[in-house]
């Protein structure tokens, strides 16, 4: 317990240091916040365009889609807050042969990498997402029950676990290939572009594509449905099972990759 608390304190300390680093360039802070505002606008505009064109997305009304955009905003901001930078550091350490710093720590190495401080600027992105969610819930005349809110948070966690695994698997490709820093970016973009729209939107794309895209699209669809008080048990099982399977795969591959690590260039 004492070690856990010490670890927790160090974790928050690393966040504090990152915050100081983030506010060092004021213009960066301002432009980054503006960019996040633009991203939020982009998210909402894209789903509204999809809703207004042709026959729209069957089964989803305008404000439900805006709610999904809000969830997506929170999802991507949390991804940048807790995962993105850590993967960047992991890749740098693999390429420079400096992974030993993480490997010799008295905690699980994968956990040690995951617990490095993230980019605190993205808290603003989370706030923007929460504002969009609140606005759409008001328009939908829906007040989510505490259990629904809790369920949405839990499902969002599983959704983030999915994108974490995609990025982690992409990052550890650097053990075998030279200069593939963008593999993690690819992993993040695959998930974050598919889950921009609800799972039902891909229904016409063919049975195989629809089922293959489900682990990606459900990462935002299920939290949105949870806030609306809708629960689709089979979809929840797919999300939980796929994210846990991916996590298991990432752990196996991590241990396998470490056996091939030679600390070259360190």
């Amino acid at each position, binding site marked *: 317990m004492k070690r856990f608390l010490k670890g927790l304190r160090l974790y928050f300390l690393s966040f504090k240091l990152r915050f100081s680093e983030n506010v060092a*360039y004021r*213009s*960066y*802070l*301002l*432009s*980054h*916040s*503006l*960019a996040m505002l*633009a*991203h939020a606008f*982009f998210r909402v*505009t*894209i789903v*509204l*365009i*999809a809703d*207004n*064109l*042709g*026959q*729209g*997305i*069957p089964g989803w009304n305008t404000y439900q889609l805006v709610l999904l955009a809000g969830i997506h905003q929170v999802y991507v901001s949390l991804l940048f807050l807790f995962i993105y930078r850590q993967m960047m550091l992991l890749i740098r350490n693999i390429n420079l042969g400096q992974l030993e710093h993480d490997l010799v720590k008295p905690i699980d190495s994968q956990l040690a990498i995951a617990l490095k401080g993230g980019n605190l600027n993205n808290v603003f992105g989370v706030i923007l997402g929460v504002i969009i969610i609140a606005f759409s819930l008001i328009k939908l005349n829906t007040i989510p029950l505490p259990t629904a809110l809790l369920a949405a948070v839990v499902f969002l966690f599983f959704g983030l676990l999915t994108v974490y695994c995609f990025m982690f698997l992409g990052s550890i*490709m650097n053990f075998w*290939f*030279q*200069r*593939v*820093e*963008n*593999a993690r*970016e*690819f992993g993040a*973009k*695959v998930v974050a*572009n*598919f889950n*921009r*729209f609800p799972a*039902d*939107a*891909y*229904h*016409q*794309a063919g049975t195989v*594509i629809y089922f293959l*895209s489900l682990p990606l699209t459900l990462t935002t669809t299920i939290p949105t449905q949870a806030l609306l008080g809708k629960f689709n048990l089979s979809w929840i099982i797919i999300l939980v099972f796929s994210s846990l399977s991916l996590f298991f795969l990432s752990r196996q591959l991590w241990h396998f990759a470490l056996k091939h690590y030679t600390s070259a260039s360190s």
Partner: protein
Amino acid sequence: MRKLLAVFRIAWQYALTSRMRIVFWLGIDILIPVVLSLLFKIIYPTPQSTIAGLNYSQFIQYLLLATLIKVTLITYPSEEVSERIWRGTLSKNLLKPMSFPLYLITAGAGWRLFSVTLIIPVFILISLALNLKIIFISNLISLVFILFSLIIGFIAFWIFDFTFGLTAFWLTDISGIQNLKGVMFMLLAGQFIPPQFLPLWLQKINQFLPFQYFLAFPVRLIQQTINNHEIIKSFAILFIYLIIFAFLARRLWRQGLKQYSAVGI
């Protein structure tokens, strides 16, 4: 010329050593058309029905062409410029016996050429698989217009992006600005969806901004979904922006060099 050829050869060789990296970048570029083509299958009531003048096949074709042009001609010198200013390594380039912008264009061309050799077969294969048209040019005049729009679009975007990069002389870390520019380009240039799909109020604003003339305009020329009046107007706006950004870039470069202190070295 020999110096530039040497830079080009080195960039090409560097690209060859980063094959997997380029494959991943291309994967990211192709991802957006893939997701949108799957999504719009449900939005189009029938494949024959049209939205803003485009049927489903034309929409897919638009996305593919926009991706092809983006991969081929849209380069981001601002990343290189800001990185060098931030780290202070611009000093090395200032001492070299060649113009820095010319160096960037040449090095970028070597990298792009490798990307193009990879994406063109992909483009042809997807077009054939989806039964889409590959050859669009119907007469010599349209060919001239298309080539002209591509060349002017490339130069204008390059200077536009370079100008953003030069702000690093004063702001040091411009990743936030680049992020902002990226999202505006994605929405307004037509990389994500054709500009005619945007809400009317946004279309009205967008016609005075430069973004759609870099990417959507050449695609619309290739697809022949643009009238003569719009062609003339688009070229005029593109030229005006080209002049404005060339002037700005020149001024910022001169002022910036006075400000530059090789911080980071």
